[in-house]
């Protein structure tokens, strides 16, 4: 109107619409990136899919020299290490999240525990692996000698222990958040009826937060599966199906880390990429389902 010429208005309108388009574009790029990522993994796996077919997932022999690619040992290795790690971490992360979430809401010890969780979460995977090699492996070796089995030291148990340490901060922080979202009034209602804090936690909070905590476990499981470096350093690189929790094994990610750089043949490389594709599906499944359940739970809570 007064001090605005048609020209400046048009230039402002142009800038506004360009900026809006830029924002939309950034969203589109993410979608393209994600689809491109998936398509790359898929197309690069095609050779292996046609070569090995379904036996890729069921065959127990992985022998690049004979061009036999069966991923069953890695699937089992991944599954066993991750489940074991989850079981080891469970009591600790549960205790930690209830302790901080409900008993010690503030004060010196809460700060100590909270910053310890943050510290633990901040240590890089490769350093966990390094420490595991020098501290955990010798201990496991002694146990193995004591039990009279081959003292590898490295193997599923060593990896699971380190893996457990690594996922505790993650699962504890999720369950702590879930517990803190339980409404104050139902906690107070339980206390006012004469429940002890223990009864309030086990009979009111945990049932209420059940699905949120379950989702936290799914996400932690996804975390454990996708973890690479520490496991690569500790699992012992064996392509056989593990016979006990002391056996050396390989996980989907550790075999990729170990063999990708030296894979020269096209089929070998393609088989490793198919492993990555499987890994992608499995981790995406756990993290998305976990996130979905948590979101749904938060809406209801």
């Amino acid at each position: 109107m007064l001090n605005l010429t048609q020209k400046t208005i048009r230039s402002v309108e142009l800038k506004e619409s360009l900026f809006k388009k830029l924002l939309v574009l950034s969203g589109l790029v993410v979608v393209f990136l994600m689809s491109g990522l998936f398509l790359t993994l898929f197309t690069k796996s095609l050779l292996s899919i046609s070569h090995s077919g379904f036996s890729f997932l069921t065959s127990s022999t992985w022998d690049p020299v004979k061009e036999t690619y069966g991923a069953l040992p890695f699937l089992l290795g991944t599954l066993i290490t991750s489940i074991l790690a989850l079981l080891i971490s469970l009591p600790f992360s549960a205790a930690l999240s209830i302790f901080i979430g409900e008993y010690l809401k503030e004060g010196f010890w809460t700060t100590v525990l909270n910053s310890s969780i943050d510290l633990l979460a901040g240590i890089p995977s490769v350093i966990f692996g390094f420490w595991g090699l020098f501290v955990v492996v010798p201990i496991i070796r002694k146990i193995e000698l004591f039990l009279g089995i081959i003292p590898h030291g490295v193997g599923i148990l060593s990896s699971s222990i380190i893996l457990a340490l690594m996922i505790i901060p993650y699962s504890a922080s999720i369950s702590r958040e879930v517990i803190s979202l339980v409404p104050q009034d139902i906690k107070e209602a339980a206390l006012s009826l004469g429940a002890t804090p223990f009864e309030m936690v086990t009979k009111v909070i945990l049932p209420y937060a059940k699905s949120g905590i379950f989702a936290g476990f799914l996400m932690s499981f996804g975390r454990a599966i996708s973890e690479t470096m520490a496991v690569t350093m500790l699992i012992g690189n064996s392509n056989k199906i593990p016979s006990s929790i002391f056996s050396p094994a390989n996980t989907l990610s550790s075999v990729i880390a170990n063999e990708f750089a030296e894979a020269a043949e096209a089929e070998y490389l393609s088989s490793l990429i198919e492993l990555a594709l499987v890994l992608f599906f499995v981790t995406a499944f756990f993290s998305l389902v976990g996130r979905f359940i948590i979101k749904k739970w938060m809406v209801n809570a």
Partner: protein
Amino acid sequence: MIYDASIRYRLLKDRLFKISLGVLSCILLMPLLFILYYIFINGITAFSFDFFLELPKPVGEAGGGISNAIVGTLLLIAVASTISIPFGVLIGLYLSENKTGKLPDITRLCIDTLQGIPSIVMGIIAYTWIVIPLGSFSLFSGAFALSLMMIPLISKSTEETLNLIPDALKEAAYALGAPYHTTLLRVIIPSGKSGLCSGILLGVARVSGETAPLLFTAFGNPFMSVDLFKSVNSLPLLIFNYATSPYQDWQNLAWGASLLLVLFVLSLSLIAKVVSKR
């Protein structure tokens, strides 16, 4: 008062529960403190002027340093940040501006999926997209793999921060006649500055310890390299390679590198915390 015979038992159970929670939490503290102690004790002996300024020496020769890995790590982070910060902030802005809708929902799903993808898979992607076409391992491909990991972290923290900014500020800017882009860039983003910065710092802290995505991209390099299109060393790669080597000298360098990396990552997260409290 109703006399309840079991009340003493119930209180006992409560106390036992509380004690066992405390004990479990303290047991957990021990390995943590031990890890930090172990890294510190082993790492501090490796620290010296040479450690920071020299290149690694061949096996058998004493001394040597990790200057190439320090420079490499900083370069990788710098390049990865250059790619991922503007992009991640834009996506976060887009998502906080468009809370509903088809494309924003799909974008959110993609971001969530991207965040869940194992870091080693990012390495494979950077390998097929960049290393193969360019024909060599490179700093750029490593930084690209890292930025793939940073983008979801930064965009999510940006979205969450901006969602907390009251609509009243946006309305105030509009009521003064500010155009859309100025409102976002000069009012909304500055208001969320501390949250944005802390999100970015945490993103950097998160990827600076990553090894897996660098295995087949940055690859590692025993020499100093600042070339964007040549392979480069980094602290995590050096730790991985030297930790699994049989040589005491190299293992010592790896402990020193571990201490340096832990200090770096922890101070980044500490700064992030201080920034977000402001």
